[in-house]
């Protein structure tokens, strides 16, 4: 795929990129209209957070699929600190880290707001977004843990985290955002789809209607939202990918 980096014409205000190179000069008026590109990976929940937010806001964008073992020069230039996807490039200026990208999208295209306007409610939304981010490593361990003892411990940790989320985060609401999804729901998409597939891949169930009724119902409702349903990786492809990741890890453990 050919990627064209368009340089906007000069205007008063300079937006420097995070990484030091002034890639593009943008005026505030042309900002919302400037070109949007997303560097992502088909299997990544973090990529999909950004896709969902852009779609909800009705923002046109060019999607660039990155081959993770062979990351593009552009990606490495745009995200030299972490060298990871997703990276949103707006008018030539890169933004990395999915949760930071989400807030950027909500602030740049403020119609259909995806965070509460009340400062306290907003702080609570951010708190729960941070919570799922902090638990990322235990979900990964859940997929990759090999020994029975490890698996049991991780499953227990995951259940504990999910119970807190259900009890204190979601409560009796349909969505974290109330009647419609917001940035919190988008951040938790990783549970509704990726975690459910991990359970399938390793044949251990944690997020069940019997143990977590409200969160299970939330996951079902979330997956039925049209923008989510229409922008999700193919399930068979996803399962195969997860199983391959696990096999690789198991093989590495055996070779130690």
């Amino acid at each position: 795929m050919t990627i064209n980096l368009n340089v906007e014409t000069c205007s008063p205000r300079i937006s420097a990129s995070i990484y030091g190179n002034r890639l593009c000069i943008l005026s505030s008026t042309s900002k919302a209209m400037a070109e949007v590109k997303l560097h992502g990976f088909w299997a990544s929940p973090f990529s999909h957070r950004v896709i969902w937010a852009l779609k909800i806001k009705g923002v046109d964008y060019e999607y660039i699929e990155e081959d993770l073992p062979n990351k593009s020069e552009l990606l490495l230039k745009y995200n030299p600190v972490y060298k990871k996807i997703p990276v949103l490039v707006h008018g030539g200026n890169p933004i990395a880290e999915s949760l930071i990208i989400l807030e950027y999208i909500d602030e740049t295209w403020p119609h259909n707001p995806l965070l509460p306007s009340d400062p306290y409610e907003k702080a609570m939304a951010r708190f729960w977004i941070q919570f799922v981010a902090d638990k990322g490593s235990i979900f990964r361990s859940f997929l990759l843990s090999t020994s029975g003892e490890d698996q049991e411990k991780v499953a227990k940790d995951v259940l504990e985290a999910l119970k807190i989320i259900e009890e204190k985060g979601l409560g009796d609401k349909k969505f974290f955002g109330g009647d419609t999804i917001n940035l919190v729901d988008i951040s938790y998409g990783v549970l509704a789809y990726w975690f459910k597939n991990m359970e399938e891949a390793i044949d251990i169930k944690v997020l069940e209607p019997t143990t977590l009724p409200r969160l299970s119902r939330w996951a079902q409702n979330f997956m039925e939202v049209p923008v989510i349903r229409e922008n999700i990786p193919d399930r068979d492809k996803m399962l195969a990918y997860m199983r391959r990741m696990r096999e690789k890890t198991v093989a590495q453990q055996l070779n130690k």
Partner: protein
Amino acid sequence: MEKSDLKVKVLGTWSSPFVMRARIALNMKSVNYEFLQERLWEGKSERLLKSNPVHKKVPVLIHGDKLICESLIIVEYIDEVWPSAPSILHSDPNERAIARFWAAYLDDKWFPSMRSIGFARGEDEKKAAIAEFEKGLVLLEKAFGNCRKGKPFFGGDQIGYLDIAFGCFLGWLRVTETTSGIKLLSEAKTPALINWAHRFCSDAAVKDVMPDTEKLAEFAKMIASKRRGEAPPKS
């Protein structure tokens, strides 16, 4: 009653950089608050467990009957509830994203790498930890050059979100320099940050809450000996 008139309290400790963030933000907005000090080395109080049942950590901002946790979330909350000047976050979404990116980097990578220096066992481990930490400082020196746009602070003419997020660690950085015997911020490698650090610590919103380095070093020794199960030093 106006939201901004409700009683404000900060639950925390004088030694925590994360608690400092909340206090600096309130100072910037000239908001009076009651500082409720926890003695974490003696265990977590009922008050703390009730105020932050999920994480059981400081700081907690208590505003009227509302409880807000997580230091960076607290800083953004303060900026929104007391929107009068000075602004803590920039109004431009791209500038905000850059500041948030580096604040997250500080919390996720840089501060843990500083703590690794203190926990390192043996010279080799210590050398490796310091090398890793210094790589981060080089990135931050570069980021400062770009964010400041020739002004004194990351936030421009006045301290802002990223100054607060970063500057709160200066006390512990100095303690690490003392205990490791190595200058971590140096004229050679981080000339701009050295000057920024002086300016930050002298700021009116910062100077009364930045802990004294010697006091912090003594405190660190006390905590370390408690961890090792030793008897407290005779005062």
